[in-house]
């Protein structure tokens, strides 16, 4: 219930932003609210889970961690692309997570995948085992695992 309201307000603001008006108009927000109401009404049956957007700080921290990992692993992969001889050993390994629920799992997956050098190939039906493909297993597996635990912790700070 709360999540829906939140989302509605979110859409209303999104609406205001999309209008590209020079000044903020309450009427526009209201129009956006109506639009959101319509959309959410149409979509109401998809709300299986609720969504909380709190703990902005935790979120920001997560973002920072993520950015650092993003840049470092990007460098890694660019080096690999540009190295005259391709010399790496990719592979798939597993990782069992403590996270629970669709949103947490999804968030972690997104972070893993956005970090260059690692892709989630599968998630077990039980929602707890990640099968991850890494560019260079001996070298980056540990780095990925380290990043994973960092992400996991940061996510939990946000969600729990």
């Amino acid at each position, binding site marked *: 219930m709360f999540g829906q309201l939140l989302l509605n307000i979110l859409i209303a603001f999104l609406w205001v932003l999309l209008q590209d008006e020079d000044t903020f108009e309450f009427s526009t927000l209201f129009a956006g609210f109506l*639009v959101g109401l319509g959309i959410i009404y*149409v*979509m109401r*049956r998809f709300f299986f889970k609720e969504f909380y957007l709190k703990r902005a700080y935790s979120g920001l921290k997560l973002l920072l961690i993520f950015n650092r990992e993003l840049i470092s692993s990007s460098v890694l992969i660019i080096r690999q692309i540009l190295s005259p001889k391709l010399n790496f050993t990719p592979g798939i390994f597993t990782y069992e997570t403590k996270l629970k629920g669709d*949103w947490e799992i*999804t968030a972690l997956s997104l972070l893993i995948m956005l970090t260059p050098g690692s892709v989630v190939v599968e998630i*077990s039906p039980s929602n707890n085992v990640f099968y991850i493909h890494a560019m260079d297993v001996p070298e980056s597996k540990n780095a990925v695992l380290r990043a994973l635990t960092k992400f996991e912790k940061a996510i939990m700070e946000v969600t729990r």
Partner: protein
Amino acid sequence: MKANDVILQTVSKIAVFIILTYGVHLFLAGHYEPGGGFVGGLVLASAFVLLLLSFDIDTVRKGMPIDFKLLAAVGAFLSVGTGLAALAFGVPFLSQTEVSATLPILGEIPLASVVLFEAGVAFAVIGTVVTIIISISEDV
């Protein structure tokens, strides 16, 4: 092992909201910026397509029990109907009125018949595209 679509479905839910909002915006913006009934409708339809791809027909049906064929017909009816409305005023068929009313809360919105016309276009597009996609998908 069954494929686990949790990532896809979770992200799709968010994406669908963005797409739907964007679609409505495109539809209404058409008078001034790129967009309009057709593109708006198509984008809205693609939101449904995304839902269908991420979930399945039964789920989407349960979520939105709409007969899309009829939606298409409603759209066509609106488009032709706004044209016919002109007949009642003794002006040529499809004459669009150009009133941009300033309503108390909503502010200035283009209340032109063209909006109704475009809405018809959008409905028709959504209705048709989704009808086609669902019809094919169901035919196994």
